[in-house]
C-alpha cells in the first residue's frame, strides 16, 4: 500500500468535500465580497486577499444546492491554481484527513453532471464519503 494522501476537508450542506492539503493556501473567516454583475451565477464575487484580487466561488451554486441558511457566514478556502488563487465559499471547515489509495473510487455514475465535472473521485471514509474537488476545473468554470 502506498503512502496515504492528506486532504483538507470542509462541509457544504451535507456534503463532505476535500482538497489536497498542498493546494490549500489558507482558510479565512468572512471577507467582504464585491459582487460581479453579469458573471456566472456560481461566481460569488471578488475578495481582497492582501492586495491580490481573488475570485470567490459560491460552491453551493456550483453544486446546485439550496442557498445558505441565514445563520453563520461562509468561510473562504483559498486554493492555489495554475493561474493564481481562487476562494471557495464553504459552510464549515473539517479536519485534515489521511486516506489510503485503496479507499478511492472514481466519481459514481449517480452524481449529477455538475458534480461530476468538479470531482475527481470519492474516498470511502469510515462513516461517510469524501468528495475530492478538482481545483483546476474550479478555476476554469466555477
Amino acid at each position: 500500500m502506498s503512502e496515504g494522501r492528506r486532504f483538507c476537508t470542509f462541509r457544504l450542506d451535507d456534503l463532505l468535500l476535500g482538497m489536497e492539503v498542498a493546494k490549500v493556501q489558507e482558510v479565512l473567516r468572512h471577507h467582504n465580497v464585491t459582487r460581479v454583475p453579469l458573471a456566472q451565477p456560481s461566481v460569488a464575487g471578488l475578495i481582497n486577499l492582501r492586495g491580490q484580487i481573488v475570485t470567490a466561488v459560491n460552491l453551493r451554486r456550483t453544486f446546485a444546492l439550496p442557498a445558505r441558511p441565514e445563520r453563520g457566514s461562509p468561510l473562504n478556502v483559498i486554493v492555489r491554481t495554475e493561474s493564481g488563487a481562487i476562494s471557495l465559499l464553504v459552510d464549515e471547515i473539517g479536519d485534515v484527513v489521511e486516506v489510503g489509495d485503496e479507499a478511492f473510487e472514481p466519481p459514481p455514475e449517480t452524481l449529477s453532471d455538475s458534480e461530476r465535472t468538479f470531482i475527481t473521485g470519492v474516498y470511502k471514509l469510515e462513516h461517510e464519503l469524501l468528495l475530492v474537488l478538482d481545483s483546476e476545473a474550479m478555476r476554469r468554470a466555477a
Partner: protein
Amino acid sequence: MEEVDDIIREFLAESAEGLDQLDRDLVRLEQTPADKELLGSVFRAIHTIKGTGGVLGFPRLETLAHAGENLLSRMRDGKLMLTAEIASALLALMDALRAMLRSIGDCGNEGANEYGDLISHLEWLLETAESEHVKQSTLPRRLGEMLIAKEAATPEAVDAALQAKAAGDPRKVGQILVSEGVTDAKTVVETLREQAECREDASSTGNLRVDVTLLDRVMNLVGELVLARNRILQYTGTQTDRGLLSTVQLLNFVTAELQEGVMKMRMQPIGNVWNKLPRLVRDVAVACGKRVRLDVEGSETELDKTIIEAIKAPLTHIVRNSIDHGIEMPEARAAAGKTEEGTISLRAFHEGGYVNIEIRDDGAGIDLTRVKAKALARGSVTPEQLARMTDREVLNLVFLPGLSTAEKVTNVSGRGVGMDVVKTNIEKIGGTLDLQTVGGEGTTLKIKIPLTLAIVPALMVSCAGERYAIPQVNLLELVRLNGDEGQEIELVHDAPVYRLRGNLLPIVYLDREFGHAEEQSSRATHIVVLQADGSAFGLVVDAICDTEEIVVKPLGDHLKSIPCFAGATIMGDGHVALILDVPGLARKASVMRDGSGAQQAAATTSVSKQGEQWLLFQAGSRARMAMPLSFVSRLEEFPADAIERSGDRPVVQYRGEILPLVPVAEALGGVEQRETGPAQVIVAHTGDSRAGLIVTRILDIVDDHVEVEASGSDRGLLGSAILQGRVTDLLDTHALLQTAGARCGSEGARA
C-alpha cells in the same frame, strides 16, 4: 539610418559609463601611479571611445581621445609617471569628451569646440613630461581662475577678493570683484554661466542601467503602497491624534513623491519613437512622388516605456497613411493654391494626466462620399444606417476593418489593414482616438493616452450598492438632474435619451445593464457623460463618489469573458471595486436593447439627424405637424357619434378595446375645435402606451432627413424641423401619450 541611431545611442550610453569609470580610475591612479592593471583599464577605455568614435564618423572626438591615448600609452609603457598635472589634464579630457558626447546626443554632432588648446596641452605634456614643469590646468573650475584665464581680472585682485571672503566677507567672490571695480557684472555673469555648464557636464552622465522587470516589480510595490496609503488616509479621517495625523501626512507626501519618482524612472521621451520618422517620411514621400516636410513639436514629452513600445507601430502607420492618402501630388497642391511641399506635423503634450499626440497633415482631407461608397460596397453598413449617420460617424468608418479609401493598393498602404489595427492598439492601452478632417485642408488625428498603465485616475460611482471605477480618459462631464421641467430622461422609440444642451444624448442605465433593479424604476439623478468610439452616451448611476488614483489589477479566468470590465482595483477601505470598460459597456448596451440595431445606431449618437419616414398632419391652428411614422399603427376615421366619454376623457371603441383619444390641438394648448364631421384619428403607440390622436387633417407621408432645431418651450413638441422645405412642428408623441394616461396592457417590449 535607424540602426545607426541605435548604435549611436548605445555608444553614448556605454561611453558615458566608461567615462564615469575613468574618472574614478584616474583618481585612484593618482594615489597608486604604478598600478599597471589600472593603467591598462584606463587605456583600453579611452581606446574604445576613440575607436568607436572614428567608426561612427566623429573625427573631433577621435582626435581628442587620440591625444589622451598617446599620453596613456606612454604611461602604460612606464616611460611616464602620472603627475597631478597629467591627471588634471586627463580629467579635463574626460570633461571635454563628455561635452562632445552630450552634444552628439542632443543635436547629432560633436559641437563646434575643437578643444585645440586641450589637445596641444596634452601633446605638450607628452613632450615635456620628463621635465618637472608645472603649468596651470587648462580647464579651471573656480570663478577666480576662470576670470584670470579670460584676463578679465588680475591674479592679485582675485587673491585679494578670496582673502576678503576668507576674512568673513559674506559676499561672493564675483560680487567682491565687481564692487571693487576689477571687472564688470556682465563678464562675471557670463563666466558663472560657463562654470555652471561645466558642472552640468560633469553631473549629467550619472546614468544607471536597470532591468525593466525590476522596475516593474518596484512599480507594483509602489502600487500596493498607494493602496495602503489610501486606506490609512481613509481610516485616519476620523481620528484626531495630532502625532498620528502628521505622520500620516508625511506618509502621504512621501508616497506621492515615491510614486512620481518611480513613474519617472519608467518614462522615456516620445522623441525616441519620433526620431525614426524623418527617414520614414522621406522614403515614403519619395516612393509616392510627393514632397513632404515633417514638423515635430514636443518630442521631449515623456511616456511610460510600455506605452512608448505600444504606440510605435500605430504612429508609423498613421504617418505613412497621411503621406500616402492625405498629402496630394505636388501638381495638385499647386493647383489648389498650396505650397508644393506638404507638411505633416506631430505634436505631443501633457494635459491632465494624459498625453495628447496630434498628427496633422495639410493634405486633401478624407473624402466622405468615398468612405460611404466603400463602406456600402463592403457591406459594412446598410444604406439606411448610412443615411442616418452624422459626418463624424461616417468618418469613423475608416476605423472599420477592411476599409481603405486609397484608390489603388500601393506598397505603402491601401491594403485595408491598418486603421482598425491602429484603433485596437491605442484602445488596448486605454487611449482614445479622434479623427477630424476638413475637405481640401487636411486631416488631424488626435490620440489621447494615459501616462502610465498601472495607476490611472478614475471616477468612482456607485450603483446598486457596489462601487465602480470609471477611467477618467472616458469621462466627458457630469450632469445632475434637479428634477426641473425638461430636465428629464425621455424616450425615443423605447431608447432613453437626455437633452444635453440641445443634443440628444443616449442614456444607458447601469443598474439595468447589470440586471439589478428591474422593476424599481429608480429616479435618475446623476448622469455620467462618457465617450466611447468617438460618440458620447450618458450613464445613469445611483451616486457619484469621488475621483481616486486606482491601481489596475487583472480579473480572474471566470470573469475575463465579461466585456464590461477592464479589471478591478482595491479601494481605500479594502473593498474591491470593478473598473468599467466603457467601450465594452457601450457595445453591450446597444446590443441589449431590442433587436433593432439600426435604431440603436441612431440612438448611440446624436439623434438630431434622422432619415426617417414622417407623417404630416394638421391639428387646429397648427397647419403643419409631423410625427415619426414608426409610432403610427393605423389611420382611422371615426363618425362623431362613435366618440364616447370615459370620465372626462374622450374614448372610442376600437377592435374590442377602449382607445383613449387625445385631441392634439387642445393638448398643445390650442383652442378646442368642435368638429361636426367624422374625426380623423391617428392610432399611435409608443412603448406600451396607445392612443388615438384627433387631428384636423392628414397631409402626407414624407421620407426626409430631419434637422431638429432646439425646441421652444411648447409642451408636447420635440421642436421644429424643416421638412420638404417648410417649417414643421415635431410632435412629442411619447409625452402626449403619457399625458393621456393612455396605458393599455403591457404587451410592449420591455428589454
